[in-house]
C-alpha cells in the first residue's frame, strides 16, 4: 500500500500509461480488490516458495517500510525541516538561541553515549536533523562547528571499532547505511571549532573586563542579549567545545601506529576530564537561566537544563536506513552520559598508561586486569588495536619473536628459520587471535575461548608431529639441529601451558557470567582443579626447562649451592597456582561432602541427570581432551567418598592460607597479584571456619543453611553458614 492509494476503493486512473516497445499496462486493481475481499483477517496465501516461515519473517511490526499502519509526524527530513522542526537560527531571540544550542550539545552527548552503549547510530546521534543536513547550519557558526566535530568523531569511532573487526554481538554499532557520516572538509573540523572557541574566549574576557569595569580596546558583539548571563553562557559553551576538541585529539593520538601517540593522548584525556568537570558544574547555571523549572525528574533528562532539545526526531531515519530496529529506544540521561564518558576516559587512560611490555605474559595479564573494570566496546576496541597491528604485537614485534620470548628461548632464536614452518606460522596466528578475543566482552569471549581450545590442541599435535618427524630418528647432533630441537621443545611446552591457561579462563569466566548454578559448583570446581594441576605442572616444567637451557648456555661446569637451591625452589608463579589448586580442591570436597551427607546442592530433574549437565558444561574441554583422562566417571569416583569426617581430617583451606602467606613476599612489587592474594586469603580463612562448623554440626543440625557468595573473590566462592 503506497501513500498515494486512496482508501475508498477508487484507484488512480492507470489507462493513461502508454504502452512501451515491449510492455503493455493492464489495470490489475479489480483483481487485487477481489483478492482482498476474498481473504479474511489473518489469512495467508501460501505456495511452495512462500511458506509460513517466509511470511513470519517478512513482516516486521513497527517498521514503517512494511508496516504502513505506523503513523509518523513527518515522512521525510525535508518535510520536517519545512515544518520548522530544525530552525536556523534556532530562535530569533539570541539568548534562547544560545540556551537551545547548549541543549542540542547536551542531547547529542547523551545520544553518543547511548550509541556507544549499544544502540544504532541512526536512532541516536543521527536523530539530529541538524546533523542530517549539516550544510544548512553553516550560518550558525557555533552549531555548525559543533555538529561537524561530532560527525567527524563518530566517523573516527566507527573506524576504530570496524578495524578491530570483532564487533561481537555489537554489530549494530557500525551500521551506517544511508547516514551522512562522510563530510567534505571534516578533517578540518578542529580549525572551525578553534575559531569559534577563540571568539567565545574573547567574549568571555570582554565580559570579565566589563564586570571589573576595565575597558577593552575591542568592540565585540555579545553572544546573547542578557549581559548578566553572558559570562555563564560563555563558560558553559567553552567547556563543551573544549571537551569535543580534546576528545577528537585523543582519538587521533591513539590511532597513531605502535602506540606513539599514547603519551599525548594522556594529556588530552586529562584535559577532557577537566572539561567534563566544568560541564557538570555549568549545569546549575544552565538550569537556572531558563526561568521556569522543567517538569519531571531532572536526573532523567537528556540535557543539563532539563528542557527538551529542538531538532531531534528518531523516526525520520526509520524509512531511510536499512536494518534498524524500529523500536523506540531510551537515550541515556545527560548525567548518565557524562558518567559514561568519565568511565570511557578512565579506561582509555589505563590503555595509554600501558608500557608496551614485549613479554606476552605481561600483556595477557594487563588485558585480564583491564577487563575487570568492565570497559565498553569503544575502549576495548582501542586496546585490541594497540595489541595487534599489521600482524605484529603493538605493530612492532613479530609474533615469532614474541613466542620465542614467551617460551623462554634465547634472544637470538627470533631470527631462526624455523619461523617459516607452517605450524609455527599458524601458531602465530592463533596467538594474534587469542589477543583479539581477550579484548571482547566476557560473554562473547568465553564462547570463542571454548572454540579456541580445539585449535590449540590441534596445533600442539601438529607441532609434536613435526618435532618427531625432524628429530625422531636423528642420532647425529649437529649444532643447528640441537637448536631446532630446543626451540621445538620449548615451544611445545609453552603451547601446552597456554592451552591450559585458556581452559582455566574459559572455566572461571563461567562464574563471572553466572552460568553455573549452585548444584553445578562441585563439578566445576573439580574440573577447575584438574585444569589447574596441569597448568601448574606445565608452568613449572617450562620454567625448569628454561633454567636448564640458560644453565647450559652459560656452560657452567659445577652447580654452586645457590644455584641448586634456586633450582629446587618452586617458582612463585607456580606457588600462586597452587593456592588456586588448594581452594578448588577444598571447595570440591566440601560441596561433595555436603551432597553426600545431607543431600544439598543437587538438582535432580525429571528429564536428565548430572551426567548430562557435566557433558554440556565441559563439552568443548572434553572434545579437546583438556585434560586427558578426565570424565564424568572419574569425577564421580573422586567425590563419591567425601564425608564430613574426611573433611575434618584435612583442611585444604588452611593449606591455602599458609601458602598465600608464604608467597606474598615474592609479589611485593606486583600490586595486582598482591591484591588478589589478599582476597584468596580471605576466602581461605572464611571457608576454613565454615568447614569446621559444618563438620561439627552439619549432619546433626537441620537448621544449618549453607550458601555461597562471591564477595571476596570473583571465582572462588566464600561459604556462608547460617541458621535458618
Amino acid at each position, binding site marked *: 500500500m503506497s501513500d498515494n492509494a486512496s482508501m475508498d476503493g477508487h484507484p488512480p486512473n492507470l489507462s493513461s500509461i502508454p504502452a512501451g516497445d515491449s510492455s503493455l499496462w493492464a489495470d490489475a486493481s479489480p483483481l487485487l480488490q477481489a483478492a482482498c475481499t476474498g481473504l479474511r483477517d*489473518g489469512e*495467508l496465501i501460501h505456495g511452495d516458495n512462500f511458506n509460513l516461515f517466509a511470511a513470519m519473517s517478512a513482516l516486521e511490526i513497527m517498521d514503517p517500510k512494511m508496516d504502513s499502519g505506523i503513523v509518523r509526524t513527518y515522512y521525510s527530513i525535508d518535510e520536517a525541516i519545512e515544518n520548522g522542526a530544525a530552525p536556523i537560527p534556532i530562535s530569533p531571540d539570541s539568548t534562547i538561541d544560545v540556551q537551545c544550542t547548549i541543549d542540542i550539545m547536551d542531547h547529542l552527548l547523551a545520544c553518543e553515549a547511548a550509541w556507544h552503549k*549499544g544502540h544504532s547510530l541512526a536512532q541516536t546521534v543521527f536523530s539530529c536533523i541538524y546533523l542530517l543536513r549539516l550544510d544548512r547550519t553553516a550560518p550558525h557558526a557555533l552549531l555548525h562547528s559543533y555538529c561537524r566535530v561530532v560527525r567527524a568523531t563518530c566517523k573516527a569511532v566507527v573506524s576504530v571499532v570496524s578495524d578491530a573487526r570483532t564487533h561481537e*554481538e555489537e554489530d549494530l554499532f557500525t551500521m551506517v547505511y544511508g547516514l551522512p557520516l562522510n563530510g567534505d572538509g571534516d578533517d578540518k573540523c578542529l580549525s572551525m571549532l578553534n575559531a569559534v572557541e577563540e571568539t567565545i574566549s574573547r567574549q568571555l574576557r570582554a565580559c570579565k573586563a566589563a564586570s571589573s569595569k576595565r575597558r577593552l580596546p575591542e568592540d565585540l558583539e555579545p553572544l546573547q542579549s542578557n549581559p548578566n548571563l553572558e559570562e555563564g553562557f560563555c563558560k558553559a559553551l567553552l567547556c563543551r567545545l573544549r571537551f569535543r576538541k580534546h576528545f577528537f585529539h585523543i582519538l587521533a593520538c591513539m590511532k597513531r601506529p605502535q602506540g606513539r601517540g599514547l603519551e599525548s593522548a594522556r594529556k588530552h584525556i586529562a584535559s577532557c576530564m577537566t572539561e567534563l568537570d566544568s560541564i557538570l558544574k555549568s549545569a546549575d547555571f544552565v538550569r537556572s537561566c531558563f526561568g521556569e523549572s522543567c517538569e519531571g525528574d531532572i536526573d532523567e533528562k537528556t540535557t543539563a537544563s532539563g528542557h527538551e532539545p529542538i531538532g531531534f526526531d528518531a523516526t525520520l531515519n526509520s524509512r531511510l536506513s536499512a536494518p534498524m530496529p524500529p523500536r523506540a529506544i531510551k537515550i541515556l540521561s545527560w548525567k548518565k552520559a557524562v558518567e559514561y564518558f568519565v568511565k570511557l576516559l578512565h579506561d582509555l587512560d589505563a590503555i595509554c598508561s600501558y608500557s608496551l611490555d614485549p613479554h606476552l605474559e605481561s600483556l595477557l595479564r594487563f588485558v585480564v586486569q583491564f577487563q575487570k573494570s568492565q570497559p565498553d566496546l569503544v575502549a576495548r576496541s582501542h586496546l585490541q588495536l594497540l595489541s595487534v597491528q599489521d600482524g605484529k604485537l603493538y605493530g612492532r614485534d613479530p609474533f615469532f619473536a614474541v613466542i620465542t620470548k614467551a617460551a623462554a628461548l634465547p634472544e637470538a632464536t627470533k631470527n631462526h628459520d624455523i619461523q617459516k614452518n607452517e605450524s609455527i606460522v599458524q601458531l602465530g596466528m592463533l596467538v594474534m587471535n587469542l589477543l583479539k578475543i581477550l579484548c571482547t566482552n566476557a560473554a562473547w569471549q568465553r564462547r570463542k575461548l571454548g572454540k579456541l581450545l580445539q585449535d590449540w590442541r590441534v596445533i600442539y599435535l601438529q607441532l609434536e608431529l613435526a618435532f618427531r618427524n625432524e628429530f625422531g630418528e636423528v642420532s647425529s647432533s649437529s649444532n643447528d639441529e640441537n637448536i631446532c630441537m630446543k626451540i621445538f621443545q620449548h615451544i611445545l611446552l609453552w603451547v601446552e601451558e597456554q592451552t591450559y591457561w585458556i581452559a582455566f579462563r574459559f572455566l572461571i569466566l563461567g562464574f563471572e557470567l*553466572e*552460568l553455573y*548454578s549452585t548444584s553445578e559448583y562441585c563439578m566445576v570446581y573439580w574440573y577447575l582443579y584438574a585444569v589447574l594441576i596441569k597448568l601448574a605442572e606445565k608452568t613449572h616444567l617450562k620454567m625448569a626447562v628454561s633454567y636448564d637451557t640458560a644453565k647450559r648456555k652459560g656452560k657452567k661446569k659445577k652447580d654452586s649451592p645457590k644455584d641448586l637451591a634456586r633450582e629446587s625452589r618452586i617458582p612463585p608463579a607456580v606457588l600462586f597456582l597452587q593456592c588456586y589448586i588448594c581452594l578448588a580442591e577444598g571447595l570440591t570436597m566440601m560441596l561433595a561432602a555436603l551432597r553426600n551427607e545431607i543431600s544439598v546442592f543437587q538438582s535432580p530433574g525429571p528429564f536428565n541427570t548430572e551426567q*548430562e*549437565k557435566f557433558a*554440556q558444561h565441559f563439552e568443548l574441554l572434553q572434545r579437546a581432551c583438556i585434560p586427558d583422562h578426565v570424565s564424568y566417571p572419574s569425577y564421580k569416583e573422586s567425590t563419591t567418598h567425601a564425608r564430613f569426617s574426611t573433611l575434618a581430617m584435612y583442611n585444604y583451606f588452611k593449606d591455602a592460607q599458609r601458602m598465600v602467606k608464604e608467597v606474598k613476599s615474592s609479589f611485593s612489587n606486583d600490586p595486582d597479584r598482591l591484591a588478589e592474594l589478599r582476597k584468596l586469603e580471605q576466602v581461605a580463612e572464611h571457608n576454613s571456619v565454615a568447614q569446621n562448623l559444618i563438620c561439627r554440626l552439619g549432619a546433626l543440625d537441620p537448621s544449618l543453611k549453607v550458601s555461597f557468595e562471591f564477595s571476596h573473590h570473583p571465582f572462588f566462592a566464600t561459604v556462608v553458614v547460617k541458621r535458618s
Partner: protein
Amino acid sequence: MEAMAEEKTEFEESEIKYVSYGGEHHLPLIMNLVDQELSEPYSIFTYRYFVYLWPQLSFLAFHKGKCVGTVVCKMGEHRNTFRGYIAMLVVIKPYRGRGIATELVTRSIRMMMESGCEEVTLEAEVTNKGALALYGRLGFIRAKRLFHYYLNGVDAFRLKLLFPPPPPPRQEL
C-alpha cells in the same frame, strides 16, 4: 504498612485442565494471552507458523473455561542435532506461582523427547529469576550468556536441556 497486594485467584490444581493445541479456535486465545503479557509484538503469521507446523508441541491451560496459560514451541534440525525450541510461555498473573507454567513446559518437553529431540533450548532474560528457576528445576543449564540480546540492553541466557541418550534397543532373545 500495606503488603503488596497481588490479586491471586484461589483454585485447586486439579481444576486446571491442560489441552493440546486443537485448532483455529485456540489461536485467538493464545494470541490474546501472549499479547497481554509478553513485550514482543508478534504478527498472526508468527503464531500460525508455530501452531500449524507443530500443533502437538503447544499446550493451553484452562480454569473453569478460561484460558490462563499457554506454551508455544517448535522443533527441527539445527546443525546436526534434532532440537526443540520453546518460543513463548505465558501464565496470567493471578495464576502464577502454582506450577501451571511448569506443567505446560513439561508436557511440551515430554512430547519433544518422544519425537526424538536430542535437546531443548530457549532464551531467557538474565533478570527473569522465575523463568531461570523453573527451567533450572527441569534440568536446563545456562549454556551461554548473550550480551545485550534484548533491545533494552538486557543480556540473555541460552538455556539448554540435554536428554540422556536413548536406551539401547533390547536384544530379542
